[in-house]
């Protein structure tokens, strides 16, 4: 009787297709998000996250269709992020079949958006995605935008505390220092965010080998999210779960 720690693969989508590298074999259509979501579901994923990186309104409309198709075929929770700026955007995604939405830049630009979403739909639908890196701010971490290229002039821990107060249900903590390095998660950052958060923390960025995931959990993460190591078949979700089971970390069978 323990809440299982979650493993969440993340797919970048645009125009109804999975974009950025995905390199599966024996899949009829590696670019179809629904097929990939199904496959991850079969491999034991505890949730699926779609990050919509559409550049146009037309592409974004297509995302709603893939959310619908996925929700009708994959019976595990589905989170969608990217380009959400209003409660209308959230409403459309939830109606299409998303269970949760994640917001990032739009909340930094207008923090009241958090209150608006959680007042209308409840805080459990709202994931705050934070792209954080080490900096000379009070907590030692700052928030970045544009994939880590720009500083948001915001202390990351101060921002997280404010967002929790305003009404988020989860934090997706992306380490911009660890992202892409494959040298492991930023464990001290996970610990520091865990210490101030009374909502679940999803750790992201830096996963390279199976053992990295357990370390993130031991540092206080409630869930782990990764993209490329799953897409390229470098690490299987089932292998992480097998390792966790041996280490006594609660996993869903």
């Amino acid at each position, binding site marked *: 009787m323990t809440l299982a720690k979650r493993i969440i693969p993340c797919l970048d989508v645009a125009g109804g297709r999975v974009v950025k590298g995905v390199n599966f074999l024996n899949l009829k259509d590696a670019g179809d998000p629904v097929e990939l979501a199904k496959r991850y579901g079969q491999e034991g994923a*505890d949730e699926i996250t779609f990050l919509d990186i559409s550049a146009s309104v037309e592409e974004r409309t297509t995302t709603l269709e893939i959310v619908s198709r996925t929700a009708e075929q994959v019976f595990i929770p589905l989170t969608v992020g990217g380009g959400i700026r209003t409660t209308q955007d959230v409403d459309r995604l939830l109606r299409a079949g998303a269970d949760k939405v994640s917001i990032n830049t739009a909340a930094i630009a207008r923090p009241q958006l958090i209150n608006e979403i959680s007042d209308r739909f409840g805080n459990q639908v709202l994931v705050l995605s934070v792209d954080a890196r080490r900096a000379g701010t009070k907590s030692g971490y700052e928030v970045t935008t544009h994939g880590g290229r720009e500083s948001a002039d915001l202390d990351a821990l101060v921002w997280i505390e404010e967002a929790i107060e305003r009404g988020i249900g989860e934090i997706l903590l992306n380490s911009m220092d660890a992202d892409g390095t494959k040298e492991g998660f930023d464990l001290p950052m996970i610990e520091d965010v865990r210490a101030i958060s009374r909502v*679940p923390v999803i750790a992201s960025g830096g996963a390279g080998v199976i053992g990295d995931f357990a370390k993130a959990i031991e540092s206080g993460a409630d869930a782990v999210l990764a993209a490329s190591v799953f897409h390229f078949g470098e690490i299987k979700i089932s292998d992480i779960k097998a390792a966790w089971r041996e280490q006594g970390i609660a996993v869903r069978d």
Partner: protein
Amino acid sequence: MIAILDYGSGNLRSAARAFELADSQTVVTNDPDICAEADGLVVPGVGAFAACMQQLIAAGGKEIIDARVKASKPLFGICVGMQILFSQSSEKGQTGGLNILAGEVTEIAAPVLPHIGWNTVVAARESKLFAGLTDSYFYFVHSYAAKGAVANAKNSYANYGEVFLAAVERDNVVATQFHPEKSGDAGARLISNWVQSL
């Protein structure tokens, strides 16, 4: 035929599809006649308790549910759709519920909330809902729950910081705090168990 009560609360697409796999005659509606005649009525619900109650009342859902319970017709509440069956909730101040099940819905005593993710359920002995589902994981997402046993019912429990009601089966009223429509194969089995019982 299964009717899924549409009163503007949350993601009904997955619920509709999940029940459709067990009964191809599944409709999403708030038509009182269809809801009254259906073999089973599913009452979903996400978000805050008070908001759900308001939306339910505005959509005529209170009368629909009361009529079904009065007629002893099967009903399945999910998540906040379970909570609103109780007498009241302390979420954001006291709000009255439908008072079909006696008891109060209160915040779970756990350091990290919401309770989000997959947790196991200790099923009531001889539960029909959990037939074949010993030690299965189900997907929860909530901060509030009913805690005490419902009288004359099969009570199934989960534990997160404290023990709370994960599911209740009393006569023709069944309800789960977790989302069976989001709980993979275990959820599909549970839905099928209910549909088979209708």
